[in-house]
């Protein structure tokens, strides 16, 4: 029996046809995956389903639970049991878990909250999602993975009939992701129907019963995943072409020793006495791509940011050598001028000034390169931005486009352009392909290979192990702030990396 049937949904924005007669049928009790490249129209479809775009602003029919549904807003759809959990979590960090779960839905008698009932129900829900935290814990104090579970507990508190998860594992570690996916399967066993939107095809294969592929605002295919489905099949439908190689073929020959970090120690910026990075030493050769694998919280980002101008931590000890000379990386601009660049994992809040243009962002880290005597030469600036637009294939009508309007992949290219313009010798890339689609990932990988060919050293931090295995010459494995192993490309496998992490 179909729980949900969206028929011939079309939606136009001024100048763009976002959805063109899209069909989506979700059976009762299944996990249905909706996949597609960024900008394919998945989010728009979900916004229509959840009432963000109200009935009347689109064409087509929605049948939910056997009856036509015409949602005017989100609370309409929630009342019917359709709950959407967005990529950006909608929790209030300063409130406790129980307060968040019952936010807007408080267990109260005439406005007075019944705390005993609230906490009792919270404990039940937390047990259901497998989260061992006290209901009074502040959401701020738990990690992203656990926050995701709180969101699901919140959805369960509302008598959910259809649970929609939008990129639920985008910010999660491999093992947290796995836990979440297992929870989805468990909820399915309890009769909850869910829709998952994801870029990670291995996860889609793991949980989904049915896959709907959307491309350019149209339904391309509806695949049955129960019988087994290969990632290549899905990718083919997503991009409209066969993608035999997810990673560009490449031969590399690393040269001389470029970057050497020795005995690096970092303490937590607030909790004095808590050491975040312990005695880390590593090296990068010219023309080499070095990966850093590890779980979230293992200290990878902290390591990178503490090296990059002490952007994280305090009481930092250790030495950094570039080309055998010790360099001063005590501030960000010193690190930049020494030849180190760091591409953050969070391009929106740490990488870009979103309300400004591509040109503005491209030159931001090297304004000296486009000015004389601190007066900007704006024509030079335009030339630089145009050059990178072409070199990195940033898809935009002009470099005067605001970066907020770009897709994730193009935003990431702008961030890369900014750092390439500083002409670094070593680039540290933190989750360089997070949240961007398959096609754009491939392009980013190609750029990384080109950089290595030019003799630059690349450090790549990633939570996606296939990516590290596909791209890196060597992989360091990090756990709890220390390096626990080093693998050459040919010896590395997901299993070996995981066993290094687990065994310490």
């Amino acid at each position: 029996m179909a729980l949900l049937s969206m028929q011939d949904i079309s939606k136009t924005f001024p100048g763009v046809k976002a959805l063109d007669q899209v069909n989506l049928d979700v059976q009762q009790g299944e996990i249905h995956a909706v996949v597609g490249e960024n900008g394919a129209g998945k989010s728009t479809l979900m916004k229509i389903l959840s009432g963000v775009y109200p009935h009347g602003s689109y064409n087509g029919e929605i049948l939910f639970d056997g009856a036509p549904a015409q949602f005017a807003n989100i609370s309409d759809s929630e009342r019917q049991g359709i709950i959407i959990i967005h990529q950006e979590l909608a929790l209030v960090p300063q409130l406790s878990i129980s307060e968040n779960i019952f936010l807007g839905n408080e267990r109260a008698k005439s406005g007075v909250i019944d705390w005993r009932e609230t906490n009792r129900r919270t404990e039940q829900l937390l047990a259901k999602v497998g989260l061992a935290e006290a209901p009074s814990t502040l959401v701020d104090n738990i990690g992203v993975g656990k926050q995701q579970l709180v969101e699901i507990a919140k959805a369960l508190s509302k008598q959910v009939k259809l649970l929609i998860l939008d990129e639920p594992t985008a910010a999660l570690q491999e093992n947290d992701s796995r836990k979440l996916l297992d929870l989805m399967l468990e909820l399915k066993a309890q009769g909850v129907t869910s829709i998952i939107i994801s870029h990670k095809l291995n996860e889609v294969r793991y949980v989904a019963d049915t896959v709907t592929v959307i491309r350019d605002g149209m339904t391309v295919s509806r695949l049955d995943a129960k019988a087994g489905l290969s990632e290549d099949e899905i990718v083919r439908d997503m991009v409209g072409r066969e993608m035999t190689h997810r990673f560009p073929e490449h031969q590399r020959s690393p040269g001389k020793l470029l970057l050497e970090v020795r005995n690096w120690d970092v303490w937590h910026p607030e909790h004095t006495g808590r050491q975040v990075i312990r005695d880390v030493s590593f090296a990068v050769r010219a023309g080499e791509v070095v990966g850093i694998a590890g779980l979230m919280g293992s200290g990878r980002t902290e390591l990178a940011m503490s090296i990059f101008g002490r952007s994280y931590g305090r009481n930092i000890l250790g030495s950094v050598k570039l080309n055998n000379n010790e360099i001063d990386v005590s501030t960000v601009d010193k690190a930049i001028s020494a030849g180190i660049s760091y591409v953050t994992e969070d391009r929106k809040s740490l990488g870009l000034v979103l309300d400004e243009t591509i040109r503005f962002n491209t030159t931001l880290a090297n304004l000296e390169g486009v000015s004389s005597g601190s007066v900007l030469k704006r024509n030079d600036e335009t030339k630089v931005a145009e050059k990178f637009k072409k070199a990195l294939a940033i898809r935009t009508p002009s470099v005067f486009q605001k970066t907020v309007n770009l897709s994730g992949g193009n935003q990431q290219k702008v961030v890369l352009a900014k750092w390439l313009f500083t002409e670094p010798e070593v680039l540290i890339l933190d989750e360089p392909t997070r949240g961007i689609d398959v096609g754009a990932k491939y392009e980013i990988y190609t750029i990384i290979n080109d950089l290595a060919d030019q003799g630059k050293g690349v450090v790549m931090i990633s939570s996606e192990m296939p990516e590290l295995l596909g791209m890196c010459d060597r992989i360091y494995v990090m756990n709890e702030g220390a390096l626990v192993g080093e693998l050459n490309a040919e010896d590395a496998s997901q299993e070996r990396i995981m066993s290094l992490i687990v065994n310490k």
Partner: protein
Amino acid sequence: MDLAQSDTNPAPQVKTKSIGQYLSSHLRQYGLLFALIAVMAFFQIVTDGTLLRAVNVTNLLLQNSYIIIMALGMLIVIVSGNIDLSVGSVMGFIGALAAVMIVNLDQSVPLTIVACLCVGGIIGAAQGYWVAYWKIPSFIVTLAGMLVFRGLSLWLLEGQSVGPFPKEFQILATGFVPDIFPVSWGDSLANLLEIRRVKHVNMLALFTGIAAAAMIVWIGLRQRAQNRLYGIEDEPKIFFFARNTIVAAALIFVMYKLSLFRGLPNVLITMGVLTIIYAFITETTTIGRRIYALGGNEKAAKLSGIKTERLTFLAFTNMGVLAAAAGLVFAARLNTATPKAGFALELDVIAAVFIGGASMSGGVGTIIGAVVGAFLMGVLNNGMSIMGIGIDFQQMIKGLVLLAAVIFDVYNKNKQG
């Protein structure tokens, strides 16, 4: 005739559409200019031409000079993502300091001016230090500063007004630049135009106006040519010429009016030069660019190697110096320092900056916008006073104008987003 028509007919059709699109995406800039023109036209009519009489135009500039001087600094503070509530008090305090130094302690005028500007800088730096390096919200720090400096001026003046100032101090605000051209030129022009009551036209003011207008048009043309060269989205020809004609004509008109009274006020020169300097700094220097980046996304700016703390510190220091300059002009204009001087003026300054299109969250705003915003408020004040509208209604109307301007901004942004 036929040929010409067939040539020109298809073109306008295409253009009309692009003009419409251009207008809707740049509504804010034009809206502000049109609002200023509309408000001036309105008051010119309802005050029976009093608004644009030579004396009143001069007055309008003098009355708003200190607001504009402070708006320049405030724009930078607001673009950097902060706010400064203390400027009214600091302005009053500096006026009091100047009065005590000159009138009570018999210090020389130049020494007093230098000392006052330095003290302003130190005040700004002291506040900026807490905001920049201790991350204390600027709202709190400057709210504290507002109280402290209000109290300090009361203490310094012992609750009394102190004045009058010597002539050489007064000319800061009320002086005029002497005409360097032969008097006979001005006389003959006055005769030629058959202006009664005016014996002499100040040629310096007139020529300065024409020169400035020519300069603006020239810079605009050059910019436009360069934009075209790089294929940057350009404003339609009609808009470019209409805008430049209006601005140039307005400039010449204002200068002409000034020339019929006493010529160029010293304050106008100060104001004009400062506006040009600050517009240049914000638009075409690395430090200006970095301030926009700081306000747009502080964390991203920091990770791009920008010394965000130092910039915030400098923004407040600069604000202090400009508040001091405004304080000197204000005291010189009133010819006395009173404990109430500058009271609630920070709100006018902040309002001017927001009317000029700056964003509360930082990263957005222009010097020209802030100056035009300040003028808009000034014309409203002046026009309503001439009409004899009570201070009660004046406050209400100003409040509603501020709200309307910001609503217009937000509406525009939503429509585009």
